[in-house]
């Protein structure tokens, strides 16, 4: 298991390098002068030229990229073009806000979606089922920012119980998390429902029912345990989507997080800030996916076997006992 984790972490490195190159290229090779964007359109050309020299913008693209990435590999994420301050210090302040919203959104969506989906599957074709499915369908279709704006108007202006802006108390995060969780919960409900339904249709469930095992025990012992796998997968896949969704949400609720700094940096082509933010996000997602896969292993012993054994050929592994598992 340990070896597997190490392998995964090492394998993240080329991916992250690839991401950094792609994004750096996109930003650098398109028109737009960061100096002019940062200092202002009407800045004196002498000042602009000095700024460009200061930022190292006169070097060719590859040199700039290599300088940047060699810094990253030793932990120096560069200095922001806009402020001149180290990128790392600025991102450290903002990353927790985004993570709170993203994880909170996922947590809330799981807390609501999984039980709802389960109930919907177990009590198929009843009111609960139709209610859950309709709600889920509607929520996936509502654009997040529309929902956020509505919630903002309602809870802040009409009810006056929540603050509109800032990030210093837990109250600031309620609406963003709810907004993010809304469509994620919908997806969770639907996935859980279909996954649980698949399990319910299995023969062994029918056997257990025929044997006279009480329904609640069947649900707890067999249905959830077997049906939870795809749900966990979806949670893992969703982390990336959630992190992307926080951009718009941070914009609406004025929360200083990764999303808002990315949008602002992208407007002024603050390359170190942009690339470093995306690298951090990618690393975070990679670690989350790794955690999800580890959880996977604890749930499904077959997968655990895969991780603990030597991988000989792609797609086929030899277990410790010598047999092959596809």
């Amino acid at each position, binding site marked *: 298991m340990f070896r597997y984790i190490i392998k995964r972490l090492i394998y993240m490195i080329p991916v992250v390098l690839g991401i950094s190159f*792609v994004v750096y290229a996109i930003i650098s090779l398109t028109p737009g002068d960061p100096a002019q964007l940062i200092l202002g359109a009407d800045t004196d050309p002498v000042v602009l030229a000095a700024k460009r020299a200061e930022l190292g913008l006169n070097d060719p693209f590859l040199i700039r990229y290599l300088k940047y990435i060699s810094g990253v590999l030793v932990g120096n994420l560069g200095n922001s073009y806009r402020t001149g301050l180290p990128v790392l210090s600025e991102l450290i302040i903002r990353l927790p806000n985004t993570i709170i919203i993203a994880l909170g959104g996922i947590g809330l969506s799981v807390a609501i979606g999984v039980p709802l989906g389960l109930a919907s599957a177990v009590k198929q074709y009843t009111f609960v089922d139709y209610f859950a499915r309709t709600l889920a369908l509607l929520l996936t279709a509502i654009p997040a920012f529309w929902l956020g704006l509505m919630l903002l108007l309602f809870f802040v202006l009409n009810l006056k119980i929540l603050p509109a802006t800032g990030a210093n108390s837990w109250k600031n995060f309620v609406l963003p998390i709810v907004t993010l969780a809304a469509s994620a919960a919908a997806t969770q409900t639907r996935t859980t429902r279909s996954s649980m339904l698949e399990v319910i*249709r299995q023969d062994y469930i029918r056997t257990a029912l025929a044997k006279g095992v009480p329904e609640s025990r069947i649900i707890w012992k067999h249905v959830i345990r077997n049906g939870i796998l795809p749900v966990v997968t979806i949670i893992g896949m969703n982390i990336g989507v959630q992190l992307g969704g926080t951009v718009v949400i941070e914009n609406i609720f004025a929360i200083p997080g990764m999303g808002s700094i990315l949008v602002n940096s*992208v407007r002024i082509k603050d390359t170190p800030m942009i690339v470093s933010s995306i690298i951090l996000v990618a690393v975070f997602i990679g670690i989350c996916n790794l955690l999800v896969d580890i959880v996977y292993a604890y749930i499904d012993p077959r997968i655990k076997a895969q991780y603990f054994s030597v991988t000989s050929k792609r797609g086929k592994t030899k277990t410790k006992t010598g047999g092959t598992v596809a």
Partner: protein
Amino acid sequence: MSGTAVIINSDSSVKKRSQLASIWRRFCKNRLAMVGLVIFIFLVFMALTADIFFDYDRQALGQNMKERFLGFSLEHPFGTDQYGRDIFVRIVFGARISLMVSLSTAGIGLVFGTVIGAAAGYYGGKIDNTLMRFMDVFLAIPSMLLAICIVAALGGGLLNLIFANSISQIPRYSRIIRSNILTIKNSEFVEAAKACGAGDMKIILRHIVPNAMGPLIVQATLTMALSILSVASLSFVGLGIAPPTPEWGSMLSTGKEFIRQYPHLIVMPGLAIMCAVLSFNLIGDGLRDALDPRLKN
């Protein structure tokens, strides 16, 4: 094997035809899926016939300052916006753009993803490794963030948005095809086909791709739903399709400042987005259910 359902199909076209028929029958029985299909056909109809019923330049773009912010009426079923333009007409033309963007995104994702995934799965080894790592790079960046970078760098506009959206979707398609290929690559009928002298291309096109069609199409409907929401979100932060093009997301973005006095400016495009996304999801769900052989009973 757990996970995706794979219909192993041998080369019998008769069997294929009756299979398609039964899939279609199952789909039609699903009421929600039919609702989705009806909405989709209606959207396509609107998009295709918009020019026949309405004049784009005069009604969707033409301004009339004396008729700003009108409410619902016979002449203007959805009212008018801040420049006096009929919102209903703009939504109809917006359907054209939304459908174009979502279909193109899904199409590009499908084609490129299939090619890459097929090559990776079939040839295996080093090709598989490099291609999949490449895909992982794009999969690791949240699609919204990647889209923001691309659009901010290249500028807004239809083509750039389609490009930005499809880049992050391609890896998903390639994964589907690749897993399909891996599953049946070593099965007997493929070996038999090879023994008969069938070339690689033929095997891929004739056997593998049709098998994977099911999950691919389902993914396509998801992509279409996602791309509409994505374009709307990008327009919201100011990076999407710019006015005066009547794109639903940009209508939301410009109408948001009038949300207090004239909410119909954003309610109507918002509902349009919801309907479109809903229909794609319903069709996708219906297809997924229809393709599942275990539901035959």
